[in-house]
């Protein structure tokens, strides 16, 4: 589903963020991307949804050569790649229901389809009864669930999460990662960038370890944060 080959990324200011990264993630796989702050996790995830274009190498996502996409095609790639961030990025003046529906609104999806899809997505993240609430009325964990619901409402084959538990307590973090793992069970390819050792070690899933922009370890399964 995600295929990277010989990836290098140098930012316009000359900072090298990635070097010689080869990565292959299967459909429906759940994968941690770990490393210290500044090791290149966000940069690597950004290559997948074309936030950045690699300086070297190729990125193939859902069969598309991402770097070669014309500007006009980028929105259509983004519809196939849901993204979740540490800061949730919800719209404070919209209700939970509206926040999730927003991802459909901006694609011009009709009312009927919206009323069909939004409840399913909210149900999937366990917030079926919170549609009328506003983001500030929810806990951090609940807000992150809303952002996951929004990322999933278009049923993308790929879900990326960049430090999804960065703002959350350990037990809430655990619930969120469990939810992401469940989503992977349903066939979505999930990549989670994190430096949360506790969670990674509990999960024992595939772990790709970045150090200064290079993959130093790729534990296919039963992996841990530092290889122990």
């Amino acid at each position: 589903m995600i295929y990277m080959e010989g990836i290098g990324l140098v930012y316009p200011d000359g900072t090298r963020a990635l070097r010689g990264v080869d990565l292959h993630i299967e459909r429906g796989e759940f994968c941690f991307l770990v490393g210290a702050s500044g090791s290149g996790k966000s940069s690597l995830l950004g290559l997948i949804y074309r936030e950045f274009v690699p300086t070297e190498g190729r990125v193939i996502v859902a069969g598309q050569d991402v770097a070669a996409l014309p500007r006009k095609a980028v929105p259509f790639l983004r519809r196939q790649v849901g993204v979740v961030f540490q800061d949730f990025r919800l719209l404070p003046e919209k209700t939970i229901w509206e926040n999730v529906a927003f991802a459909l609104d901006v694609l011009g999806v009709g009312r009927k389809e919206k009323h069909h899809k939004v409840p399913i997505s909210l149900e999937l993240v366990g917030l079926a009864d919170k549609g009328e609430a506003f983001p500030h009325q929810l806990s951090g964990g609940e807000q992150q669930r809303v952002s996951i619901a929004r990322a999933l409402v278009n049923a993308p084959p790929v879900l990326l999460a960049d430090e999804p538990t960065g703002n959350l307590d350990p037990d809430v973090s655990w619930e969120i990662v469990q939810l992401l793992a469940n989503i992977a069970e349903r066939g979505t390819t999930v990549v989670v960038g994190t430096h949360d050792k506790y969670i990674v070690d509990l999960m024992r899933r595939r772990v790709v370890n970045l150090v200064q922009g290079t993959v130093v370890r790729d534990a296919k399964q039963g992996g841990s944060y530092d290889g122990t």
Partner: protein
Amino acid sequence: MEHSGLTFVLIETWTAIRRNLLITLAAIGNMTICLAILGAFALGAVNLDYLAGLQAKGAFISVYLKADADGGAIRDELYRDERVKNTEFVSKDQVLLEWAHMTGTDPSELEIIGNPYPDIIRVWVANPNDLPAVAETVGQFDGVDDVQYRKSVTDKILALSQGIKISGMMLGLLLVAGTMLIVNTTVRLTIYARRREIRIMQLVGATNWFIRMPLLCEGAFQGIIGGTLAATIVAIGYACLHSYLAQNLQFLKIVYSAQFVIAFALGLILAGTLFGVAGALFSANRYLAKT
């Protein structure tokens, strides 16, 4: 775009307008003034052209004949010139009568005064610009004593109209640039206020056109309201001018009909809308190119 997409765009537009209400009002006010000045200049130019046209249509060359001249032969020769539209022979007696009529002199007194005038041929040309050249040619004819035409008035009006057009165009460019700058600024504020929302739109795969649409609608809204207000102000002013002239200066005619005023108002609203959309497009594109 489905129905719900349109609803979304309209709601976003309206939210943006409400959010920046004061600035939007200021922008509309500014736009109204700019468009009103632009409209007034356009009307001035149209009317001076019209006036010059009226003058030019009436303008003719007076060919003063020598006492022994053959008027018929000269007219025949004139008609061979393609530029000449019409000629009229006026005998010296007729000229005197016209003069008497114009000045209010009693025709019975004419005997005493005597007739100082020669026979005259009046020449109308198809294109007023040909007046000087035709006059020059006729001046060479046998039997022609002198040639005169009312060059000054027509030329002055044409020059004035030209001047108005050029200065109006330059001022217009400034005003258009100003109008677009205002819209540009308000739309930039909207973008700034909505940057998080726009960011999310980009992340969930909204096309750039979908992101632009509410911004363009906001520019169009300002343009339509500004244009409508400007058109109303200028149309009312123009109607007042028309009725004042009709009562006080009847010889001064301006272009005035319901059709003309409606066409003018629609033109001004359309211009406002275009400038509004262009200003919004400019700032939207600049922002989207950066992200």
